[in-house]
């Protein structure tokens, strides 16, 4: 058994055991605190084992293992390769941080028992090696995450609504993935599927069908309505797991099915993916900028981050379909690196937001403000996460967005009309989403942590216990490493892009300087950071030298000359984003739920309800009637047989 498989099994066993331990009667585990410790430690250990397995998969050889007895009909197959390794690592890393964080957060029994199972299911999706096991793991992810969404239904009325939306969309998504994969028919094994060539129409239908399901889990517009609700309703560490790890599995699915199993396919598949990604990136960040609740804001911004991943995947498929393997490898490497950055940044942000809710009692931006005094460590964590998620240097996303833009810019010159239009639109969407993300995170950080406290609860906010801070610290370190030395990670990712696009060469070279190998282009995040720090220090020293000596005096703020009225003159979240809302008035409706939802989902739901009412008329309760239905159905079937045979 390979190293990766060994640690994967260890992860599964630890995860299942800690789930069992969490539901043991309380006299065994001596109360809720001990239970949360067991569940948290179990989740963290599962995550650590997952990280090791993922890294082993990235650096080691592919490994296949068949367990025919585990699953009837198809058998359970584990196929570990580098592409799956990326996502196993992501899930494991997020789980480690969430587990450590969960040590200190006493939550409901359901959450404690389900989180380890959720992690195990997510670890198994990227290594599932045949259709049957993939579907089982996928459904497990959907079910366990649904349980987590409704875990706090007693205290939060929104959880029920969120659960209904999320349950419906994730199960519909499962159905489309199921029907898409079944449509491919024939062999059940992924390795055999790769060999068989499908006819264009079948492959196209299967791809679109699975794309719907993957898009639903990734929160892609227009299937995005459930995720912000679900992420906001779930407990913090579960929300971090969902929005940082689970959504990336949607991207994994698209790469695995589209690029790997179906071998690329025609350009229009990827134009669709690119368009969906571009739309999601702009829409998610725009909604985030207008959102007034920290949880909702992060959920929407996380959807925006996934949009950028999809842009990268779409561009990779598009370039692969025009035969440009090197450029496809570059775009896919950008997408995978963004998956890592997205996971690190989003996890840190959600954990910090959970710490805010714990400390200040709310995540509503209007009820916060001035938290940097009471919660300095959380402030630093949120700031780091915001920097990591908003493509500004020295943030982690800076590098992946740079790579993505490089792929798009270099794809522009020698391409057909369709590719040129697509890349132009993609460049604009990426740029716009970067600007909007900066505004969104600037707003979130400024309104929650800076300024003056706007409520008494915000004044009294206290820092979270050390365990929670340790959970954030783990991710914080990951964010810093990804931001300053992405060159350590990128060569490993290349082995993963090779699985999907077949481009074997490294796309980048260099340690401090990131240099593209196929094209002209270089950037050095570490140098930029050092230069900025040096410049700040030198500037500070120069000012000290030139300016008048003396200690800084503290004086009341000038505030336009008016005497301060506590609480009244402070700027609120709605007024802060008013200018932005005015610009995008047609897209962002401040008061009502969003227009897309109203126009698209309301009519669909109404039609469903009408269908149900019509169906009710058929079932009156009379036994004679039901017998009649049976009779007519049999007759109809016989007539059909006579006609068709």
């Amino acid at each position, binding site marked *: 058994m390979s190293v990766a498989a060994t640690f994967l099994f260890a992860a599964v066993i630890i995860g299942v055991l800690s789930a069992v331990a969490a539901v043991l009667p309380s006299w065994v585990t001596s109360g809720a605190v001990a239970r949360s410790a067991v569940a948290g430690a179990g989740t963290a250990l599962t995550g650590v084992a997952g990280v090791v397995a993922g890294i082993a998969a990235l650096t080691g050889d592919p490994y296949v293992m068949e367990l025919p007895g585990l699953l009837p009909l198809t058998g359970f197959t584990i196929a570990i390769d580098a592409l799956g390794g990326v996502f196993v690592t992501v899930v494991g890393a997020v789980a480690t941080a969430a587990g450590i964080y969960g040590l200190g957060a006493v939550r409901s029994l359901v959450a404690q028992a389900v989180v380890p199972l959720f992690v195990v299911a997510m670890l198994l999706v990227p290594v599932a090696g045949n259709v049957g096991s993939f579907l089982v793991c996928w459904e497990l992810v959907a079910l366990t995450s649904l349980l987590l969404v409704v875990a706090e239904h007693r205290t939060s009325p929104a959880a029920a609504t969120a659960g209904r939306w999320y349950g419906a969309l994730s199960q519909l998504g499962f159905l489309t993935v199921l029907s898409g994969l079944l449509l491919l028919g024939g062999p059940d094994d992924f390795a055999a599927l790769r060999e068989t060539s499908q006819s264009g129409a079948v492959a196209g239908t299967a791809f679109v069908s699975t794309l719907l399901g993957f898009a639903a889990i990734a929160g892609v517009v227009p299937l995005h309505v459930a995720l912000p609700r679900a992420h906001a309703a779930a407990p913090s560490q579960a929300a971090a797991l969902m929005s940082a790890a689970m959504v990336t599995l949607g991207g994994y699915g698209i790469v695995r099915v589209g690029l790997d199993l179906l071998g690329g396919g025609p350009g229009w598949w990827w134009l669709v993916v690119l368009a969906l990604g571009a739309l999601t990136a702009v829409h998610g960040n725009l909604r985030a900028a207008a959102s007034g609740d920290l949880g909702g804001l992060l959920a929407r911004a996380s959807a925006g981050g996934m949009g950028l991943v999809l842009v990268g995947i779409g561009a990779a498929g598009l370039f692969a379909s025009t035969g440009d393997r090197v450029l496809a490898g570059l775009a896919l490497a950008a997408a995978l690196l963004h998956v890592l950055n997205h996971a690190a940044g989003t996890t840190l942000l959600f954990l910090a937001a959970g710490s805010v809710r714990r400390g200040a009692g709310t995540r509503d931006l209007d009820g916060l*403000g*001035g938290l*940097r*005094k009471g919660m300095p460590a959380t402030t630093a964590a949120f700031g780091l996460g915001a920097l990591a998620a908003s*493509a*500004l*240097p020295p943030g982690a996303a*800076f590098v992946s967005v*740079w790579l993505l*833009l*490089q792929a798009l*810019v270099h794809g*522009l010159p020698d391409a057909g009309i369709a590719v*040129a*239009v697509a890349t*132009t639109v993609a*460049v*604009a969407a990426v*740029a*716009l989403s970067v600007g909007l993300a*900066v*505004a969104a995170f*600037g707003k979130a950080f*400024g309104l929650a942590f*800076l*300024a*003056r406290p706007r409520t008494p609860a915000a004044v009294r906010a206290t820092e979270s216990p050390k365990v929670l801070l340790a959970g954030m610290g783990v991710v914080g370190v990951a964010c810093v490493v990804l931001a300053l030395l992405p060159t350590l990670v990128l060569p490993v990712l290349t082995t993963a892009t090779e699985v999907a696009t077949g481009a074997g060469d490294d796309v980048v070279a260099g340690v401090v300087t990131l240099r593209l190998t196929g094209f*002209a*282009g*270089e*950037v050095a995040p570490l*140098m*930029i950071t050092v*230069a*900025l720090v040096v*410049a*700040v220090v030198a*500037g*500070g020293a120069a*000012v000290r030298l*030139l300016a*008048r000596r*003396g200690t*800084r*005096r*503290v004086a009341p*703020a*000038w*505030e*336009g000359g008016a005497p*301060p009225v506590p609480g009244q*003159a*402070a*700027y609120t979240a709605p*007024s*802060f984003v*008013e200018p*932005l809302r*005015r*610009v995008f008035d047609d897209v962002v409706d401040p008061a009502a739920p969003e227009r897309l939802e109203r126009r698209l989902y309301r009519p669909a739901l109404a039609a469903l309800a009408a269908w149900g009412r019509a169906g009710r008329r058929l079932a009156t309760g009379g036994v004679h009637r039901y017998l009649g239905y049976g009779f007519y159905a049999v007759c109809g079937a016989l007539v059909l047989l006579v006609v068709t045979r």
Partner: protein
Amino acid sequence: MSAPGVVGGVVAPVVVLAGAPLLAGMMRQVRARLEGRAGPGIGQPYRDLRKLLRKEPVDPRGTGEVFRVAPLLLLATTAVVAVVVPLVAVESAVGPMADAFAVVTVLALGAVALALAGLDAGTAFGGLGAGRRLTVLALVLPTLLVALLALAARVGSTSLGAIVSATLADPAAVVSPGSLLAAVALLLVVVAEAGRLPAERPDANLEATMAHEATVFEYAGPDRAVLELASAMRLAVLLGLVANLFVPWGIATSAGVGALLVGVLALVVKIGVLGVLVATGEVFLARLRQVRVPELLAGSFLLALLAVASSFFLA
């Protein structure tokens, strides 16, 4: 890293640092003269800086590290950009930092820091200014990016030095539709980002709700001096960059003393001419209502997008 690059990287920030107040003073003087006033003289910004530096450093109550670091970060981002972008010499002192995306995002970092500092004071004006600044930034950042990428797509590299040297090699490319559209878009956003008309009134101490002015209200003494200097430098760097992207002639391509002198002279003349043009234009313009500014920016974003499209379709 090459000799002309390093020398240019040392000379350019010094020129910008020393000359930026002069640019501000000159623009003010041009406006004053055109409006029939005597004006304070070109050297006034230097005197203002000296005065502010001599004052006592004061922190508004309740502000924290963000408030104190923001002016320095604004200065640092501007200085770093001045070092790496092709202002005096084509080659960059630090090639891997002269990437268009890196430069734009570093500039944006400074703007974000200032917006956050405005919020940190917790006053109504600060919040108002910060909200408007972030809104403007959310549109300026993509426009700058897309316009620069339009130029980059033509050259096949996002390095600003490569773009400038490509223009030097092929001067006809400047008058291509894509290049012209990008030039207009860039000028519009530079004007808006630097807080000039028609987006904002540059010296409107009485209009308290201007994005820039409202954000920095609470700063006094040396902090204020750093802010004023950094803002002037930002304008100089942005104007110099736009000038060199489209009219690169005169910029040094070798490390000789003569070439560098010509480079510095060319930079000063270009920034000066653009500054006078902007100041003259301001005399004839009324300030847009604040709610209309995003329309201006959205328009320039569209121009930048057209520039990308035309750099492909009309190439």
